[in-house]
């Protein structure tokens, strides 16, 4: 039997899961983010939280809904009858990364594996426009899509007990930044001085699902300067409208 997508499933007493095609692509992300907005607008009066991943939406009801089964019918109605409009523009954030070997612990390993220079690796990593699919794993950890195939590499066989805050890594077909120090198995190629999660700001994380990201290479000196500006509260990420 062929599955029809999206599938609307109840997940316990307080959540509804909407599953789309098992794919990872930007077109699907746009569709999911559109339905996310539709659902959020429908539930604007209630304490409801909607999150997305690559191919799912989760509606988490914090308030005392009658029961989740009556909500399923409403959600199905919303998902199956709403027309998808043309995509809206998103924001692109320019993120400084220092690819100094002090930070890029696995940069030489990666260059060796790929039989190219460290400079080539940096070039390949700063070239693409990445898409923020969602934030998960750790507060402020961006799941980025769009890594150049030439940079794909398997995770470290022995994960590091401690990866530094700001570390930029590659794991399989994904790249990302550790928002705080944590154990981790990705190959580390640099470090960004930017805070990707700050519990004292509202919102605590500036980027959101659907935003675009481009990395630019900075020297060790610039890294220290930006770190200084960040500590003084004078640094702001460069962002602009992004049109396809």
């Amino acid at each position, binding site marked *: 039997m062929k599955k029809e997508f999206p599938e609307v499933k109840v997940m316990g007493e307080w959540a509804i899961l909407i599953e789309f095609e098992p794919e990872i692509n930007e077109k699907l992300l746009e569709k999911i983010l559109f339905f996310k907005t539709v659902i959020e607008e429908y539930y604007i009066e209630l304490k409801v939280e909607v999150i997305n991943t690559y191919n799912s939406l989760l509606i988490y009801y914090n308030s005392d809904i009658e029961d989740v089964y009556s909500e399923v019918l409403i959600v199905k109605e919303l998902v199956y009858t709403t027309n998808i409009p043309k995509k809206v523009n998103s924001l692109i954030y320019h993120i400084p990364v220092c690819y100094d070997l002090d930070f890029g612990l696995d940069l030489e390993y990666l260059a060796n594996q790929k039989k190219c220079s460290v400079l080539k690796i940096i070039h390949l990593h700063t070239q693409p426009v990445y898409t923020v699919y*969602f934030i*998960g794993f750790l*507060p402020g950890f961006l799941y980025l899509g769009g890594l150049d195939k030439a940079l794909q590499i398997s995770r470290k066989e022995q994960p590091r007990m401690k990866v530094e805050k700001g570390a930029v890594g590659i794991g399989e077909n994904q790249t990302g930044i550790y928002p705080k120090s944590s154990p981790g198995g990705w190959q580390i190629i640099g470090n960004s001085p930017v805070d990707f999660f700050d519990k004292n700001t509202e919102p605590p994380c500036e980027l959101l699902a659907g935003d675009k990201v481009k990395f630019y290479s900075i020297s060790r000196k610039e890294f220290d300067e930006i770190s200084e500006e960040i500590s003084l509260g004078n640094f702001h990420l460069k962002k602009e409208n992004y049109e396809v």
Partner: protein
Amino acid sequence: MKSEIEVLQPGLFSTIQDLGRYGFLKYGVPLSGNMDKYAAKMGSIILNNPVDSAVLEITQMGPKLQFNASAKIVITGADLSPEINKISVSNNTIHLINAGDILSFGKRKSGCRAYLSINGGFKTSESLKSKSWYEGITDFSKLTRGMKLAFESTSFSYHDTHSAVKINSEYLYQKEIDVFPGPEYGLLSVKEKELLASTEFSVDKKNNRMAIQLLEAIENNLSPIITGPVIPGTVQLTPSGSLIILMRDCQTTGGYPRIFQLSDYAMNIISQKVLGDKILFKPDSTYINH
């Protein structure tokens, strides 16, 4: 003078918790909140506090605490042999505390997590709209020696210690856990489903606020999923057959198949289990064939 409780000894692991942190899942922030919501809420109800009041969640071995002002307290959930000034006191009743009194705990008699509620709730600091402690979000992540916990002192009279609230403690010993099918339940074979419903599982060493792992493995052929949403109460089945029950501090996304989803009541039950305790999954028959 500020009303405070001073931590003389921290015990094994205690945290301040309320009903959780809502509105920040999209930034990857866990929901957190009381592991056993029933016990925590009952403490608040007995004291006439709002149900979302901050309480102290105490795991297995309790701390030694000294009050610098008068207070009304209630201990609910696990029975960790509480004592006030070395005199044994019982759970689920209001105790009057005078300045200088010491609350301590002894041998664990039942359950895993006890809740200390205080009149007005703990007045500890809030971060991202919740007082629930979580490393990196709040200033503290567990009780440590010398720490001070703020509360609002109250004057009281002796006749208002009675409570007519009926407490159910049966669940502390309950083995059966109600579960709903998870998103990947349908991918299990008939044999795997039967095994999951008939195996008596025991709680493994890994038992914390993020997850509770079970000892017995269920061989399976499920493939990993594209990283998808998970919530407290989601039960994951790993390729090696381990069952992982995600708890209140769990991450917001995961890549293992999600085979069950616990009911709230089931989460209260599992929160009170310690190493070696047995559980039996009772798949909900009404919706299990979805």
